């Protein structure tokens, strides 16, 4: 687990009423400590499309990959479209290693 300066991990979510698109932003380290907040961000929300904004995500670990799978499952599994937005290089490497490009629409 790499060291990053301690900071507040922040999960923000917003549901665009017109498009029905839910966007979840993860600011800071995306790891098991965000488990509850991340689940709450999409739990009970009915959306037509899902986006996870990773532009301010410093790092993600395998628990975070698991949370993304949970979101995908919740969004309809193999039929769902979940977009992962603007991952940085470190995050992209983790996504690539797990070949998540085959499961998610990664927008660089």
């Amino acid at each position, binding site marked *: *687990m790499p*060291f990053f300066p301690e900071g507040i991990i922040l999960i923000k979510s917003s549901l665009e009423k017109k498009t029905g698109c839910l966007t979840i932003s993860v600011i800071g380290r995306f790891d098991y400590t965000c488990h509850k907040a991340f689940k709450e961000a999409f739990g009970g929300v009915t959306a037509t499309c899902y986006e996870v904004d990773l532009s301010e995500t410093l790092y993600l670990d*395998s628990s975070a990959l698991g949370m993304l*799978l949970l979101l995908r499952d919740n969004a309809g599994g193999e039929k769902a479209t979940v977009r992962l937005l603007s991952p940085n290089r470190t995050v992209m490497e983790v996504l690539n*290693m797990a*070949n*998540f490009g085959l499961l998610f629409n990664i927008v660089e």
Partner: protein
Amino acid sequence: MGQRLTVLVIDHLLSDAAELVDTLSQEGCKVFCPDHANEIIHPFHLEHIDLLCLNPYTQYQSGWQTIVNIKDAARLKAIPILFLCDNNDASMQESCMLEGCFDILIKPFRYRQIAFKINAVAEFRAMQKTLSTQRDEMIMHNEKVLYDHHLAKIVYENITHSNCLNDAALSHFHYGSHTFNGDVILAAYKPSGGMHVVLGDFTGQGLSAAIGALPLADIFFDWTERGFLLKQIILEVNDRLKDILPPNMFCSAAFVDINPNNDGIEIWNGGLPDLLYFSSANKLPKRFKSKNIPLGILSSDVIDYQIDHALFTPGDRLLMFSDGVHEAVDLMGRMFCDAILHPLYKGEMAVDHAVDWLIQQLQQEEILENPHDDMSCIGVRLDVNIGMEVAKRKSLPDYYEVPADFSFEYVLGADSLRSTDPLPYLLQILTTVPGLNHFSSQIFMILSELYSNALEHGVLNLSSNKKSSHDGFSQYYEERKIRLAELKMGYIKFSARVVSDTSQRLLILSVEDSGDGFDFANLNYNLSCSELLYNRGLALLNRLCSKLEFSNGGRVVTAHYQW
């Protein structure tokens, strides 16, 4: 509030004591006021006392000694003490505070002062009782959890440790950040010689991560022993994990199939850092990156199975590690993959010691003292004798062999050839013969050579010339995959006959294919002839079998095996 408190009052000034006892009684307290020293520290009293009101100058015994005695007798139960002091004795008040008293009651007593302090003590005692009850429950709970973990760990280790990690060709390390390790390293000999090796890394750490290792290990050992191919094992593990794991859990893993029979290795990487392959021919290691989605995410009918092939020369090395190593952070805050591992990636070190070197780096960077993630690594020194000794060492049966006499035919058409691997089933039938079951590795080798020749050169019409270079080897398998997927016509027929009695023990195995046959008159069985490297399958067969015959223009091969 005060009525729930039991108070011990110790003061040699009897009039003061009586006044205090009166007031406390009015406040609802149950009060003891001993008039003899021995009564003071009677354990029965102490167990029930919520508050001690003490004059430090008591004549019964030194006031300070009284405190020590009471605290000793009460053990963990911290009894609050109110010291009874004269208004003008500032230095005594100071000493009382230093001694850790709860509060001071100043003489002469005032009713309201006592009432307030009694209320405070009552609240303190209530809080203290809640805390100590919770603490006791936590201790009990923790002991139970530790005991459960202890039992589960034994089961876990029995299932995951029955492997051949102590083989001289392997070196490894395995550091867990919890009692249970979410990383798993398994190695098992194949019945045909050679070995399957797997390094798996389950999401998260601890018990929840380790639990998935059980079905993985179970399938891996059982299916390897029964002669299943790597692909079948991986797909079965994947489906089992997909069924049992919650959607946010999966297993990143690398599987390696070592085939000393053709000097080849197959690598499947799903989610692990690049596997490094060091050969004497190249300075830089070849990197086998993750080409697959980790196990347990998608069902096997929708996943694209991607493997890498390589040919090895004895002494080549393969190194794999989990992301706990890849992403470990050095003392300067850099990830291992960005700094420490560079000499490895650049081939600037003696790879013979790569595993030890990695351990040393983890120690130097103080990662082993406080690991944040499970870390594991396995190195394989590739050689043609891996798993071969073990196959040979299986001794002859010394019990009476039951006679056997049976035969069967098994024909696979194009549809079945595309989707089935017949070898494990055939092996299972043949190894039901008492005595022959001790030679399952030899039987598997014969079956697999005959079958792959019939399929690849017969039905699929592939030329083994392509396999003669490292690049060609991969192309060959690519071509094999394409042609097999598009196969519309063709068949392979197995005919087996077993005769086992007191006079002979013989297996006759014929494999017929629908291909064009081949010119078997010019076949070279010479093992030392490197030009015909890929006739080696047949050369080995020739040595294993008492007789090897070709007929029907090379479309039928018949092997006689005696034991």
